[in-house]
C-alpha cells in the first residue's frame, strides 16, 4: 500500500509562479493580505506548509487560508486534529527536518497548550543543538478585542511571548504591513509568532503589491514625523493612534507615530532616537498594563534617555483585569479619547 498522503505537487504550483519582479497589485484587507502572502510564499518555496484547525476546506475561521488547499493540495495545507499543543509540536518536528511550517492557532485565547512547545522547544532548538537544527516556523494567531467575540476570543497576551528569548514576536498594523511582514516571518530562519490584529482584519482595503517583497523584521516603522511627542503602539491600536495624530496636527501638534511592529527583539534604537528628539513619549497597547511590553519600553527609555525627557513616559493600556465580555469591552479598550487625553497631559507636564 502506498503512503496514504501523497504529495500533490501539480504543475501549476511551480510553473505559474509569479516571478519576483512581477507587479500584481491587489486591493485587499489585512486578512486578504495574509492570504496573498501565504499564497506567494507557497508558490515560491515548496517547503512552506500550512497546518492548523479548519485551515483546509474551510480556509480558516477568518478565511486567511482560503483556497490554498485547492491550489497546493492536502499535503501542504493540513487540517490537524483539534490540539494546539500538537500543532506547535508538529510544526517544530517539521521545521527541524527542513520544512517551513506556518501554523494557525484560531484565537490567542487558545494558544496556551502550545506554549510549552514554543517556550521549551521552538525557542531553544537552535541553541540546544548549537546551530545544528533550527525552527524556522511561524505561528499565526489572531488576537485582540473589539469585535464583540465570546469569552476567550479577545485577549492580548503578547507580553507572555515577548518575554521568551529565542522567539520573535511580530505584529502587523495594516494590510500592507501584514503582507510584507508575513513574508519576512516565513523566510526568517527562527521561530516567529505572528500576531494578527483581528479588529482590523477587514477594516480597510489597501493597495498591496504582490511582488514577494518582504518588510524588515526587528525594526520599528515611523509612520509620521513630529517633534512634540513620540507615540508608540502596534497592531490594531495603530489605527486609533493615526486618527489622533491627524487630529493633533490640526492643532499644530506634531506627533511622531511609531509602529513598533516587532515586539521581540525590540528595536530600541529607533524609539530612543525619536524620544531624544521629542522628549515626550506615550505608549499605547490593548494588553493589560502591568508587565506589558509598554513597561519594558518605558524602562529602557528611562535607563537610556532619562535626561532627554521633558515629561514622564506614560502608558495608555487595557486595565489589569480579565478581558471583559463583549458588553463591557469598550470600557476596557483604550480609545482615541484616552490617547488624546494622555497626550495632552504629557504635553502639559511641567
Amino acid at each position, binding site marked *: *500500500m502506498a503512503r496514504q498522503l501523497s504529495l500533490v505537487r501539480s504543475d501549476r504550483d511551480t510553473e505559474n509562479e509569479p516571478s519576483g519582479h512581477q507587479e500584481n497589485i491587489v486591493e485587499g484587507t489585512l486578512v486578504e493580505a495574509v492570504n496573498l502572502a501565504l499564497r506567494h510564499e507557497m508558490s515560491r518555496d515548496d517547503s512552506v506548509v500550512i497546518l492548523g484547525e479548519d485551515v483546509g476546506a474551510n480556509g480558516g475561521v477568518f478565511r486567511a487560508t482560503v483556497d490554498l488547499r485547492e491550489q497546493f493540495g492536502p499535503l*501542504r495545507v*493540513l487540517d490537524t486534529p483539534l490540539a494546539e499543543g500538537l500543532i506547535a*509540536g508538529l510544526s517544530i518536528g517539521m521545521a527541524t527536518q527542513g520544512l517551513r511550517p506556518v501554523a494557525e492557532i484560531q484565537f490567542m485565547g487558545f494558544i496556551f497548550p502550545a506554549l510549552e512547545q514554543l517556550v521549551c*522547544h521552538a525557542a531553544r532548538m*537552535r541553541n540546544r543543538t548549537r546551530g545544528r537544527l533550527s525552527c524556522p516556523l511561524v505561528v499565526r494567531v489572531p488576537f485582540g478585542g473589539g469585535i464583540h467575540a465570546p469569552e476567550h476570543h479577545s485577549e492580548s497576551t503578547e507580553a507572555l511571548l515577548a518575554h521568551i*528569548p529565542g522567539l520573535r514576536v511580530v505584529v502587523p498594523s495594516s494590510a500592507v504591513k501584514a503582507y510584507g511582514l508575513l513574508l519576512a516571518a516565513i523566510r526568517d530562519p527562527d521561530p516567529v509568532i505572528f500576531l494578527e490584529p483581528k479588529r482590523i482584519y477587514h477594516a480597510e482595503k489597501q493597495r498591496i503589491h504582490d511582488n514577494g517583497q518582504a518588510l524588515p523584521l*526587528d525594526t520599528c516603522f515611523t509612520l509620521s514625523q513630529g517633534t512634540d511627542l513620540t507615540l508608540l503602539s502596534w497592531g490594531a491600536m495603530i489605527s486609533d493612534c493615526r486618527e489622533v495624530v491627524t487630529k493633533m496636527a490640526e492643532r499644530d501638534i506634531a506627533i511622531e507615530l511609531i509602529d513598533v511592529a516587532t515586539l521581540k*527583539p525590540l528595536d530600541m534604537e529607533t524609539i530612543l532616537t525619536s524620544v531624544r528628539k521629542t522628549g515626550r513619549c506615550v505608549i499605547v497597547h490593548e494588553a493589560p498594563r502591568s508587565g506589558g511590553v509598554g513597561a519594558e519600553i518605558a524602562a529602557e527609555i528611562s535607563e537610556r534617555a532619562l535626561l532627554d525627557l521633558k515629561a514622564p513616559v506614560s502608558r495608555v493600556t487595557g486595565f489589569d483585569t480579565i478581558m471583559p465580555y463583549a458588553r463591557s469591552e469598550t470600557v476596557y479598550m483604550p480609545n482615541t479619547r484616552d490617547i488624546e487625553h494622555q497626550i495632552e497631559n504629557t504635553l502639559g507636564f511641567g
Partner: protein
Amino acid sequence: MRGRHRFAIPFFRYLDEEGRPEDSLPLWTRDHDLLKAIYESMVLTRTFDQKAIALQRTGQLGTYPSTLGQEAIGTCIGLAMAAEDVLVPYYRDSAAQVLRGMGWEEILLYWGGDERGGNANIHSRDLPVCVPVATQLSQAAGVATAMTIKGHAGATVVTCGDGATSKGDFLEALNVAGVWHLPLVVVINNNQWAISVPLDQQTATASLAQKAIAAGIDGVQVDGNDAIAVYDALNNALEKARHNAQATLIEAVTYRLSDHTTADDASRYRSQDEVRKNWQHEPILRFRNFLHGLELWDVEQEQALLQNCQKTVDAGVDKYLAQKPEAPEAMIDYLYEFVPASLESQREAIIAKAASLNKNHQGA
C-alpha cells in the same frame, strides 16, 4: 450484552529468564554478528552508566539518569534503525544515540551542563534529548509528517517513559499518527516508575500498549528485557512505517534498577526486595546465557569485551574532561541565526562578566 469492538494486545517474548528460546526465533537471529552486536552494545551501555554515576558522585558530572536494566531498549533502537531514519529520544536513550553516531563524550557534555552535548554531528537530523516529559512525541509526529510530505523513505522513532503516557502530548501524537498514517514508531520504556510514582498510579489500563487502540494504530507489548523481542518488534514496526505508512506503539516492559537519577533516592519509596527480584530479569545476563547456549560466546570473549568497553568509555571520559569551556557569548550566539542588534550590548556584558569572574577566580 454484545460489545461492538474487541481487542487483544499481542505480547512478545522469545527468551525465558535463563536465556533459553521459548519459541522459534525470528529469522534475523541467524545473523550472529547482529546478536553479538546487541550484546556488546548492552554491555558497553552499562559500563558507561557505571562510569557516569562515578563521575557524578565525584563532582565531575551533573545530575544523570541511569539506564541500568533498560539497556535492551536503547540498544535495539540504535541497531534496528537505518541511517536515514530519525530518532527523537528522551533521556534514557544514550545507547541508541551513540549507536547512531554520537560520542560518549557528548552524552557526558550534556549531563555535565554543556550545550555542546546536543549532538554536534552536523549531518544528523535526530533531535536532542527531550526533558519536558512527553513533548517529544508531538515533535516526532511532525518529523514523520515531514517525511511523508517530502516523500522520504524513512521512519521516525520516538521514545518516552511510562509516566509520559499520562500526558496529552502522548495521546495527541498517537492520535495524529493514526489519522495521518504517519511512518512513526513510538517506544515506551515502561520501567514501572515515574520517579516515585508506580505505574498503577499512572493508569488503570491493563497495558500501555492498548492506548494505541484508541488512536487506531497497532499496539504491541514486549518483554523489554528480552533483546530479541525488542529488536524484532522494532524491526516489524519500522518495516510497517516505511512501507505501509503505519504507526506502531511498542510498550517495552522493563524495570528501572537504578534511582530515577543521581539526585533521587529510590529507597524512600520502594523496597529493596522489589529491586532484588527484578535483578533476576535484567537483560544482559539473559542475553549472555542465550549466546552461551548458541555457543557464540565464551569467557575469553567476555573478558575481551569488558576490557574494550572500559577502554571506549575511558576514552569518552578523557575527551569530556579535556573539553575546554565554550566561549561565554555562545549563550547569545545561538539564540537566533544572527545576533539581533538589540542583544549586542548584552553580548558584550556577558564577555566582560565572564572575564571578570575568571580573574576573580584566578585571584582567589
